[in-house]
């Protein structure tokens, strides 16, 4: 039998759905909300319900966006830049947006090609991407999938698709991280860095 009352144990179970939250942390959160911050708990509950009902996916870039509003990553000024950056996840989009000066459009795959997990072109929305390439507004497609085996295979097919539509394709460089030391970089990364060297 559970040590908690039925409602309390439901709350703790629900909190455990969050990433990185185990039974101990969930209990701490539940007690905190109930004891110290009932107003905050109210806010959390309402915000969650509101978010679930009001946040969807942008039909053109597949990033999360508020229903009924224009996607902030698909504005006309971004479209005018003519660049489309393809990333695997919303977190990757945020990393590029926050860490670089890139201000073109995006396409979020929400995954990568992975036959052993049954993830194919349909799951990644490649039809939608192909339609955008065919529409002719994209002058350059920047592939920013991860440098993993799955990311490489995905990049290969993205490049083939873009070439088929006559769109210029580039791939982000991978190599030695800033502030890194060659001695501690693994062989594969170093080999990439060396083969992808640029004239100075």
């Amino acid at each position, binding site marked *: 039998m559970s040590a908690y009352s039925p409602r309390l144990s439901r709350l703790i179970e629900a909190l455990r759905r969050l*990433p*990185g939250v185990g039974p101990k942390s969930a209990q701490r959160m539940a007690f905190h909300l109930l004891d110290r911050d009932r107003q905050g708990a109210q806010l959390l509950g309402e915000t969650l319900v509101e978010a679930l009902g009001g946040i969807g996916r942008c039909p053109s870039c597949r990033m999360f966006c508020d229903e009924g509003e224009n996607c902030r990553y698909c504005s006309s000024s971004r479209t005018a830049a003519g660049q489309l950056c393809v990333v695997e996840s919303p977190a990757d989009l945020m990393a590029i947006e926050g860490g670089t000066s890139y201000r073109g459009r995006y396409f979020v795959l929400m995954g990568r*090609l992975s*036959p*052993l*997990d*049954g993830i*194919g*072109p*349909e799951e990644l929305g*490649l039809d939608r991407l*192909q339609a955008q390439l065919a529409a002719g507004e994209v002058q350059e497609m920047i592939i920013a999938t991860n440098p*993993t*085996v*799955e990311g*490489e*295979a995905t990049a*290969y*097919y993205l490049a*083939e*698709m873009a070439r*088929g539509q006559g769109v210029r394709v580039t791939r982000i460089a991978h190599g030695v991280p800033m502030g890194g030391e060659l001695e501690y970089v*693994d*062989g*594969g*990364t170093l*080999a990439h860095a060396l083969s992808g060297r640029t004239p100075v």
Partner: protein
Amino acid sequence: MDHGRVQLEPCWLLSARPYSETSLLVEAFSERHGRIGLVAKGARGAKSRHRALLQPLRPLLLSWTQRGELAALTGVEANGPPPGLAGERLFYGWYLNELLLRLLHRQDPHPDAYRAYGEALAALPGAEAEFALRLFEKALLADIGYGLDIPEDIDPALRYLYSEQEGFQPSARGHCSGRALIALRDGEPAGEGEWRTELRRLMRERVRRQLGGRELETAKLLRQLRARV
């Protein structure tokens, strides 16, 4: 050496997928232990040193402790460079991996299949990549007890029909030419021609039978992608 403790065992990495919050569930293939399922604790964390190494198709030296069905990964070192596969050839590599994952049980050594896997992977960047897949299928089926018995007296000019009971018999209705069967038997490609398609169909049918009629995901995905580009 402790019981259940393995040090720096040469392995190929078949697949690595997310497992719990920061770990990876790794499937590897070793000569002495067969297919092994390993949990790499914390391998998805930002500080993991193993992440770059734990990639499919990579030859590795793995250390682990075996307790029950899943082993705990305790060490990873590179055992050579990754096979230089790009584009569609990556899918060929995945295909080999999927075959092993679907047809072999965990902790069941298959040294012949292990050797055949290494040879096939080495041949994948080359011109005879597809033929390497056929040879691997043949070797793997033989290793799990469903070998194709190709007779010595095959006539390259005849056509052959395969049946479970009688094996390969000459027949005008046969799906496979003698030339194709000789190539498969001897492991020597026979130049250009229909024989490649014949062998692909023959082996696909044999493999599918072992999988209970199901298709391999890699083959399906590759077909979908080819239809698009």
